[in-house]
């Protein structure tokens, strides 16, 4: 009852591991499986740096037990480049980027980068649901992601520019 064998699909790979009841998903990912994309900041569900997707939805992995995620599909920022529009498998894997990641790079949407994995994962769900958000909508949707460096302006620019690229990808005539 205090230890559990669980199975997670992380970025498409099946991972089996043993966790304590109290092990948080973020620690299982980072310490157990070496996915260090999700960071640990406030540890209380407020800052969003630990955001990953669980079964397709953005969640704060510091406020989730690893056992609660048993059987689930997790995507961390490391797996995003493998999704639609990403360049995984094309370039050197270390350089592979998703359009949202590329937009953060190009728009200077980060300084220290600590908040970036969480920002990117939240933005990924929001852009999936709303391909053409207003700046106000982008700001509101990132309420649960705190940045101590950028002042958010370039973060919003990055999400806006990522939305453009993703829409072009879907446009019948466009695409890269």
């Amino acid at each position: 009852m205090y230890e559990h064998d669980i199975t997670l699909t992380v970025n498409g790979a099946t991972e089996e591991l043993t966790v304590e009841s109290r092990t948080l998903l973020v620690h299982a990912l980072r310490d157990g499986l070496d996915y260090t994309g999700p960071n640990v900041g406030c540890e209380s569900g407020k800052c969003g740096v630990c955001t990953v997707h669980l079964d397709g939805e953005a969640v704060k992995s510091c406020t989730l037990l690893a056992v609660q995620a048993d059987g689930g599909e997790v995507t961390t920022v490391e797996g995003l480049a493998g999704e639609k529009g990403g360049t995984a498998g094309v370039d050197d894997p270390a350089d592979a980027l998703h359009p949202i990641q590329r937009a953060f790079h190009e728009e200077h949407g980060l300084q220290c980068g600590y908040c970036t994995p969480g920002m990117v994962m939240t933005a990924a769900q929001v852009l999936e649901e709303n391909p053409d958000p207003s700046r106000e909508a982008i700001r509101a949707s990132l309420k649960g992601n705190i940045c101590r460096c950028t002042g958010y302006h370039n973060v919003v620019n990055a999400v806006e520019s990522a939305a453009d690229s993703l829409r072009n990808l879907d446009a019948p005539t466009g695409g890269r």
Partner: protein
Amino acid sequence: MFPPQFGYRRAGSVAEAVDLLAEFSDRDVRVLAGGHGLLPDLKAGREAPDVLVDIGGIDDLRYVEAGDGAVAVGALTTYADAVESEALWSRATAFAEAVSRVGDVQIRNRGTVGGNLAQADPSADPPAAALASEATLVARGPDGVREVDAAKFFAGGGGTALRDGEILTEVRLPTADGAEKREAAVGGAYVKKTHPASGYALVGVAAVVTVEDGRVTDARVAVDGVTDPPRRLAPVESALEGESADADSVDSAADRAAEGVDPEAAVSDAYASGAYRVEVLSVHVRRALETALDRATGAAATPTGPPHRSAAADGGDRR
């Protein structure tokens, strides 16, 4: 912050959950739903249960069902799922709006409507809306199913009418149906001043009003973030009932918001004292009533939901 050691069991059905709670009844056993109330408490050392019974996988308790006299929401429905229901918006507007104002995208993806009501945090959004909606909460335990009025559910200090071994399965929001609705127009609203750090309500007000022939025939107003437990504001309600449905009536009713609310006993923290919260209560009551009345009379459209499930419904703060 690691939670202390505890045992964990996953329940596949409501019956199994009730059995597991009974099996561990000699220990400190807790239900785990979304975990967004309980896990922060465990990490901060405010709670140290022996065993958690995880009901998060019971899909039977995820639904929004529009029935004849009520809209029923399954306890494990996440906020994000709940706000996708147009029926919830059109028929239980105040409750839908309160749910849509909880936390942020990630919190709304995980937290559950039932978990929120069971947590009974005085600064949570849905409890006031449940009070103003005169909701019924449905619990199931070893002795079967029990219904509790929202008015008798919240006990203060996080306590509720739930008994040991019981789980909350549904919240039922009564709505005017069919013929009745055509005669009288009902409008609801939830207005919130958001706590800058926690995201909970500094002050939240839920209002449900019924207008017939230009008069307010029924007014229900409840507040969270100020009193513990959240409660109805009877002086406001009685001041508005029978009056004409206009701004003057709303103003004089809202002026009575602080009547009987003791600032000394009000919720208070480093950001906002009890006195401050009571001070800004009446302006939020006025806004909630104005919006609810406009929606009842058709002066403003009743929202049909956020544009998509993760969208923030932030209107109440910036108006």
